[in-house]
């Protein structure tokens, strides 16, 4: 007589949560391809490359652009979704490189994406609310 738990057939298959992570990864992939080059080129590298002046990136203009309601789209498209995109690839990369696999690695990867996304949204919301 066997009482091994693994031998009892599962009546309902466990639903995978992969579609959620893959959708976020895929949406992030579109954003990385469409938005990231523009922001990297003009904002992060704009001054060193001579494409924009420091005057063009002045505090008043950037504050008005970023903390505008449409700036939330930038936070989502250039930070939140790319974070889920990156952590999805790192999660699978850790498995591919045989560095880590299983629950803990998955929790750490997607957990850090959630944490950093929350930080970005919180930074944006506190200033946006304060400036009305």
């Amino acid at each position, binding site marked *: 007589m066997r009482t091994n738990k693994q*031998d009892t057939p599962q009546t309902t298959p466990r639903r995978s949560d992969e579609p959620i992570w893959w959708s976020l990864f895929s949406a992030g*992939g*579109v954003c*990385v*391809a*469409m*938005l*990231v*080059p*523009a*922001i*990297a*080129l*003009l*904002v*992060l*590298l*704009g*001054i*060193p490359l001579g*494409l*924009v*002046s*420091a*005057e*063009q*990136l002045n*505090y008043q*203009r*950037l*504050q008005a*652009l*970023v*903390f505008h309601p449409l700036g939330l789209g930038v*936070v989502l498209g*250039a*930070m939140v979704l*790319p*974070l889920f*995109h*990156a*952590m999805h*690839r*790192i999660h*699978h*990369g850790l498995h*591919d*490189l*045989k*560095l880590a696999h299983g629950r803990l690695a998955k929790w750490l990867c997607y957990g850090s994406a959630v944490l*950093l996304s929350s*930080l*970005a949204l919180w*930074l*944006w919301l*506190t*200033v946006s609310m304060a400036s009305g």
Partner: protein
Amino acid sequence: MSRKPYQPPMPASWWLKHPAYRFYMLREATVVPLLFFVASLLYGLYALGQGEASWLHYLAWLQQPWVIALNSLALVASLFHAWTFFALFPQVMPLRFGSRTLPAWLMVSAQWAGVLLVILALWWLLGGVDAHQ
């Protein structure tokens, strides 16, 4: 069940053994500089919320050689990712009009045109037109 199925050994260096595997790993690796890009934006968002002095400090930080190097790497990585990603679209979702399928090269070019349009739009938002008159 006491079967012992044969499990072929799989060393961690498996991906070095074929050009296609190396290409796959290179594409996966594009997210490492991407994380630096997101960190740069997080710092920028924080600095912008702190006030003007903090923002000027951030602009100076962006011009440090090591920051320029890592952000350049992030830019190249995002373009490489875009190149691989845009090629997928005509394969995953071919657009058909009647009996005709939109050629793959046209769909890929349209996506690159989109990238260029976003760059121009952001340049315009940053007052590029006024600044260069």
